[in-house]
Structure formats: structure tokens, C-alpha cells
């Protein structure tokens, strides 16, 4: 009998899953890339990747019948990691090219960067440092466990995570003089605006932490 896949990467048609899969496989062989609701439900941990526009992401999930699948996964308290667009979809609403419903797992919205104090270009493409909103101990027992404060990670985005509750902000970053939410958390659900799979050894450590959150 085949062992139950421990971790599933949801393939909903947006973006490149290659490097993410490669990074996850450094820490577990029990990885499945799937668009099948049944297979996804049976996993013990879920990664929601993705690049692109909010609406395209939601319709990618919708046409595969995955919206309820992911929401139920979150309700079951099994660990979820959203990355970039995947993190944005965890929130209630997105305002990219209109107003669209998100998965609404974490209350909040996804909004465009405002005009930046230092007039930097948007999208933000490049490396920025992440830091906790209060003290570093807030990262203990999370995906950012043992990540040094002010570690640099790689961002590619024009829209930002804006959770309603400050307690859902796990990490902050600054671009062009503007402080924004770099990572969200609610219980076992995490969302990183940056790409851990593209953030060098620091990002790889974050992926390892996530894999370790999944119970054996």
C-alpha cells in the first residue's frame, strides 16, 4: 500500500512549481503535486503557490473545485503555506483589476502598493529584509523559527497583504520607505508574500520549518 502523501503542492494552473518542488524535496520524499480535491484533502500539509493576478488565481482554484477543499483543509487545522499569490488568496478580498472574493481564511484584503515615499518602481522586484512586528520571540514555533531578524528574502509583487487584525501579521518589510506585511499567520495557516524557494539558504530554512510543522 502506498503511504499517504505527507505534503501536497496545489497545482491550479498559475505559475512555476519546479523550484518549489525541488526545495520541498530537500526535506521530504512524501510530496505530491496535485489538482485533485480528493488527493489534496488527504494530505497532511498543503502549499498554495502561484504568481499572477488575484482573479486568475481564484478562478484557477474554482474551476478545479478546490475553493472548498482548501477552506476545509484550513478548518481541519492542518498546516497551510501560501506563497506570493497563494498567500494573497488566503485573505477575504482582492482588489487587483476589480474586487474579487478570496478564500477568506484570514480576514483582510489585498491592495496595491500606495505611491511610495521614495518613489521606487512598482512592482517590487528584489530582496528586502523581514522583521517581526514586535519582538523576535513571536517567530518561535512558526515557519520563521530560527530565522534571524532582518534576513533578506526575495519579493516580486505589486499588491500587498493587508490583514484586518494586526495579530495576523507575522513579519514586516520595507520597500521604498513604505512598511508592508511580508507574512501573515493565523494558527497553522501561513502566507508569505515573498518566495522562500527563491530566497537562498534563508528561504530553504523557512520551507524546512514548514515541513517540520506537519505532524508525522
Amino acid at each position: 500500500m502506498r503511504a499517504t502523501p505527507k505534503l501536497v503542492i496545489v497545482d491550479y494552473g498559475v505559475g512555476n512549481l519546479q523550484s518549489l518542488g525541488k526545495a520541498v524535496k530537500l526535506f521530504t520524499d512524501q510530496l505530491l503535486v496535485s489538482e485533485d480535491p480528493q488527493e489534496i484533502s488527504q494530505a497532511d500539509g498543503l502549499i498554495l503557490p502561484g504568481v499572477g493576478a488575484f482573479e486568475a488565481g481564484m478562478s484557477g482554484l474554482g474551476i478545479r473545485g478546490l475553493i472548498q477543499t482548501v477552506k476545509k483543509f484550513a478548518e481541519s487545522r492542518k498546516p497551510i503555506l501560501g506563497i506570493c499569490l497563494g498567500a494573497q488568496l488566503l485573505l477575504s478580498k482582492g482588489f487587483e483589476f476589480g474586487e474579487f472574493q478570496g478564500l477568506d481564511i484570514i480576514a483582510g484584503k489585498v491592495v496595491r502598493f500606495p505611491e511610495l515615499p521614495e518613489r521606487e518602481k512598482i512592482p517590487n522586484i528584489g530582496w528586502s529584509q523581514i522583521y517581526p512586528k514586535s519582538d523576535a520571540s513571536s517567530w518561535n514555533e512558526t515557519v520563521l523559527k530560527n530565522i534571524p531578524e532582518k534576513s533578506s528574502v526575495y519579493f516580486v509583487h505589486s499588491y500587498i497583504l493587508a490583514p484586518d487584525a494586526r495579530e495576523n501579521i507575522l513579519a514586516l518589510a520595507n520597500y521604498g520607505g513604505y512598511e508592508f506585511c511580508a507574512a501573515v499567520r493565523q494558527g497553522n495557516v501561513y502566507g508569505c508574500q515573498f518566495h522562500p524557494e527563491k530566497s537562498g539558504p534563508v528561504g530553504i530554512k523557512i520551507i524546512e520549518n514548514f515541513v517540520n510543522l506537519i505532524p508525522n
Partner: protein
Amino acid sequence: MKNIRLIPRLDIKGPNVVKGIHTEGLRVVGNPRELAQRYYEEGADEILYMDIVASLYQRNLDFELLKSVSDNIFIPFTVGGGVRTVHDINNALRAGADKVAINTYAIHHPEFLPEAVKKFGAQCIVLSVEAKKIREGKWEAYTDGGREKTGLDAIEWIRKGLDLGIGEIMITSIDHDGTKKGYELELVKAVTSFAPVPVIAHGGAGALEHIREAILGGQADAVAASSIFHYNLFSIGQLKKYLLEEKIKTRTL
């Protein structure tokens, strides 16, 4: 000021990394897998992988080689050379690329750019422009690794590319490439002065000061260089340290 990206560039011919002068007179400088791994470990912010003869010979990228090079690299990886179809981009992404750089095919078929942007997102599509100076303030765009004239004004072509939705620009100075005499600042400035998307300067870096000039004088968002890294003129760490002393921010390691 944001962090400036430092990008080693691998020019690939066959199984080797090569380097030429004015994009000609190619010499083998190393193994792509080893160089990419070294630059990743030294703290490169991204890696550029350009098959410099694929377009010329109407060939596709060697996806097996690409896959082996990208295998243990967990930073953004941009790939160019002979990209002509959505299928090519898919294959490059599957072989480990995050972005693709397009030059020759886009010049002959500009309608390909919005198609690619729609399918993969602007963040995935880098317009690679090889420019050769005609006279003061005027550059012509070239194709096929700096070999073929196009008759197109490089700056006008970039404006058109932006209208078609591309997410990033890499501007190569054919006159300065491989000469180690510094970036062509007028060219870089001519692009950064209007481009709303990030601009990668390429061609001519031979000293630490050249990188500073491209950033401060040229206003580049990122700098690509090959000779200085391949020939160990200085390491990425040394470059970062120097830039920090010059009050230019890069990613902290």
C-alpha cells in the same frame, strides 16, 4: 534606496560558459554548473543564463543542461536564448527558470510579447535588448547575440516593448561588452530615464567603480556582469562590501 541586485551572467555555448569581446571572439571560461553553484553560494541575487547561439542557429535551449545547472540554485534564475513559443517558455520554466529573456524573436514578432505576458505574467518576461551606438544619443537594436542589425531604434523598441507589457529590461551595450571599460552609461541612462519597470545594465563591467557608476550614474536597478566574476577579478562578497562603503545597498547575507 532599495537593494540593488547583483547578477552574474553565464553566456552559454554548447556545454560551456563562454565570454567574448563585443559579443565575438568567444573563449571558454568554465562549466555552467560549477559557476552557477559558486555564484549562488557567494551570494548572487539572481543568475542569468543566456544561450548565445540558440537564436543564430534557430535552435532551442538545451533544457537538460539548463535543468542540471538550475538544480541546486534557490535564487531567481533568468534564462534566454532562442525563445520563440509559449511552449519554449513552459519548457524553460520546467527546467528551472523563473523568468525568460527574449530578444530576437520578439523583434521579428512583437505580438509574441503580449501573448507571453498574458500567459506567464509580466514578472516572467524580460525584454533583452542588444544596442549598438550609431551616433550621440542613438542606438540600434541588434539580434542573434549582437550579430544582426535590425534597423530599429533601440530606445523606440524598448518603448514598444513596455507598451506590450514586458516586466523588466536587460540592456546590453554591444560596444562595451567584454571590454572591461565600464558600462555605457549614456545608454543605461537613456533607458532608466523613462522605463517604469526594473532595468538591468549589462556589458562592460571591469572594475568595482563601474558597478557603482551604473547604479548612481546610470540609475540601473540591477547590474549584470560576467568577466569580472568569471575571471575572479573580485568576488560578490567583495563587491557588496565595496558598494556598502559607497552607500549603495544590496541584499544582506
